[in-house]
């Protein structure tokens, strides 16, 4: 496909409805519902986690809600609940629309989605009960991993069919990134199952494996899903071609080839053979070219932040944070800054912003654009979409400012040995309150989207009735 445009409108024209919209409608809506419910649950845990930062006594009498457990549950429900379900839907949908063929294997995908969600729920229960693995971003306990691995592989099958059945052999950037993400999740879960859970390496070798897996999931699964959506929506919603599209292929392969090496930059300064973090930093330097290409291809959308199209405004937020966090990943691992930024809230902020600042807005843009095309119904409450954007964007900004402010203040105090270490955290209260406010706003925004989605799912008049597939 070429990057040409068809202008988005709130009510889909029949001509803009593709075979996948009608054949995979049920599966897509199911996955999105699961995704948003997990976003609500994960967002609630993120809020509890954030409140515990400035009010340590919050839920302190419950062993189920220790700060460490809440963090693990928050991370798991956001990554494997929200990102995974939304990712399944986005991959199937985008590959299906660009491929042009009716969806195949939908029944299997639905079953796999249900089992995937049972697996995530099981993981959350095990974590609350204290089965923490301690592996950042891959906190999934052994009891849940086999189910998650199998169901993720099966859930990806529809995406694979959509890729294989494509009418046009030439592919578009969205298809590369969506196919990459569908491929990476089961693979990395198999590494988590075998090398982290079943036969964990001893000593810090396991930390290296866990970092490779966890950071790899952020760089090669979460980010590609966001990029797939953004590459799709840019020409659709702006009516313009992606600038310098010929560079997109290089951007993709740079991420695939150097992304998996970059994760170990997080280990800089730690008890590891020095070549391991050094490789990570070197790969991160090369990855700057990938971020530069994304800036050239999708950067112009940032100018739409104050525009009228809600899809583009969400897109602007996503691209902005993707570029900022891409550069921040390298900057935080450079030796002059490591002493200042490592082990502060700045690193906490980076993970959360990847999920809430990069992935989520890209998915919202896709949801607002694509759901009416699958259901044949316009969004019930247009006003809620605008409010959702405002709450979400303000929320992300507050989270970023709160964590970065707290992190920077923390690091200056860390260097003052006359200040008792335990006295530092209470002085950061104002910053951390901003983060809690941001997470609260986002929860409200999520409810707005759920209300709108509820109307989309509810039975009612659809312009697609009558079988125009």
């Amino acid at each position: 496909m070429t990057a040409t445009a068809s202008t988005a409108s709130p009510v889909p024209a029949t001509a803009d409805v593709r075979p996948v919209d009608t054949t995979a409608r049920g599966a897509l809506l199911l996955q999105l519902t699961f995704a948003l419910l997990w976003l609500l649950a994960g967002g609630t845990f993120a809020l509890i986690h954030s409140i515990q930062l400035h009010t340590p006594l919050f839920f302190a009498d419950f062993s189920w809600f220790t700060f460490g457990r809440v963090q693990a549950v928050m991370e798991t429900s956001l990554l494997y609940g929200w990102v995974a379900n939304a990712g399944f839907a986005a991959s199937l949908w985008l590959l299906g629309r660009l491929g042009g063929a009716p969806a195949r294997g939908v029944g299997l995908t639905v079953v796999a989605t249900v089992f995937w969600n049972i697996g995530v729920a099981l993981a959350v229960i095990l974590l609350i009960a204290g089965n923490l693995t301690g592996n950042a971003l891959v906190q999934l306990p052994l009891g849940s991993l086999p189910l998650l691995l199998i169901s993720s592989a099966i859930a990806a099958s529809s995406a694979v069919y959509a890729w294989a059945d494509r009418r046009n052999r030439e592919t578009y950037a969205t298809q590369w990134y969506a196919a990459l993400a569908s491929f990476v999740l089961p693979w990395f879960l198999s590494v988590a199952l075998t090398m982290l859970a079943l036969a964990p390496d001893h000593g810090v070798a396991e930390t290296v494996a866990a970092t490779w897996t966890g950071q790899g999931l952020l760089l090669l699964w979460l980010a590609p899903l966001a990029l797939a959506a953004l590459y799709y929506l840019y020409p659709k919603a702006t009516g313009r071609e992606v600038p310098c599209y010929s560079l997109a292929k290089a951007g993709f392969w740079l991420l695939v080839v150097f992304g998996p090496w970059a994760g170990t930059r997080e280990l800089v300064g730690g008890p590891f053979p020095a070549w391991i973090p050094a490789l990570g930093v070197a790969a991160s330097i090369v990855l700057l070219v990938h971020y530069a290409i994304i800036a050239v291809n999708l950067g112009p959308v940032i100018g739409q932040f104050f525009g009228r199209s809600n899809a583009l405004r969400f897109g602007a937020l996503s691209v902005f944070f993707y570029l900022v966090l891409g550069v921040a990943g390298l900057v935080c691992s450079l030796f002059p800054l490591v002493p200042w930024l490592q082990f502060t809230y700045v690193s906490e902020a980076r993970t959360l912003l990847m999920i809430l600042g990069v992935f989520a807005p890209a998915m919202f843009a896709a949801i607002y654009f694509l759901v009416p095309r699958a259901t044949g119904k316009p969004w019930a409450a247009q006003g809620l979409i605008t409010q959702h954007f405002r709450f979400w964007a303000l929320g992300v900004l507050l989270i970023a400012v709160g964590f970065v402010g707290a992190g920077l203040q923390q690091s200056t105090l860390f260097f003052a040995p006359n200040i008792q270490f335990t006295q530092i955290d209470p002085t950061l209260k104002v910053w951390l309150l901003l983060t809690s406010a941001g997470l609260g706003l986002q929860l409200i925004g999520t409810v707005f989207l759920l209300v709108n989605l509820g109307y989309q799912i509810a039975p009612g008049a659809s312009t697609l009735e009558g079988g125009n597939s």
Partner: protein
Amino acid sequence: MKNGALFFLGVFGAIALSWGGVVLASSHQISKIQPYYDTLESQFYPYKQAGIAAEGEQVYKSMGCAACHTQEVRRPGLGYDDLRGWGKRQSVARDYIYESTPPLGELRRGPDLTNFGPRAVKLGLDETHLLTQLYLGSAGMPPYRFLFERQKVIGEPLSTALPINAGPGYQIIPSYHAKALVAYLLSLKQDYVYPEAQPLEPAKEGTN
């Protein structure tokens, strides 16, 4: 890109290469690290956690303590770790060879605990002090009261009761988990200086 097989082969190859280069290669190198035998002391280092302290490590992990406390000291000059008295030398891979999933941590809301054992001794903090702190909490750290039991005093208070006022006729008794956790914390130390952990001499001004 038209050729799907080539596309998937490329993606597979690129990721597999990094899996081999990072995960397998580091595992190969780290798994070869042996305990260090000090001929003068006729002693192997590091020690292996044993007994109640080993159980305490499980409590530490299960409670998620690593969400606020790190257990890795960075080399002098890289940050404030030595300024804060957390360790005179950097942590090295050999320190962790007996551990499965070492709780290195990523955030320092509380102090680093790598050398908590010797530090507690220096500050005169014994088991009772630490259990009391665990029960009461401190600035920035929540109390872990669910690791204790409030019991009625029958006759004389138990010798394990915390020296705090639990209300008339009551006493606070630490659970086995609380005692294991404190035993683990008191056992934490990385004070033996391996050859690879010798602090580097800081470069003199004008020579570098």
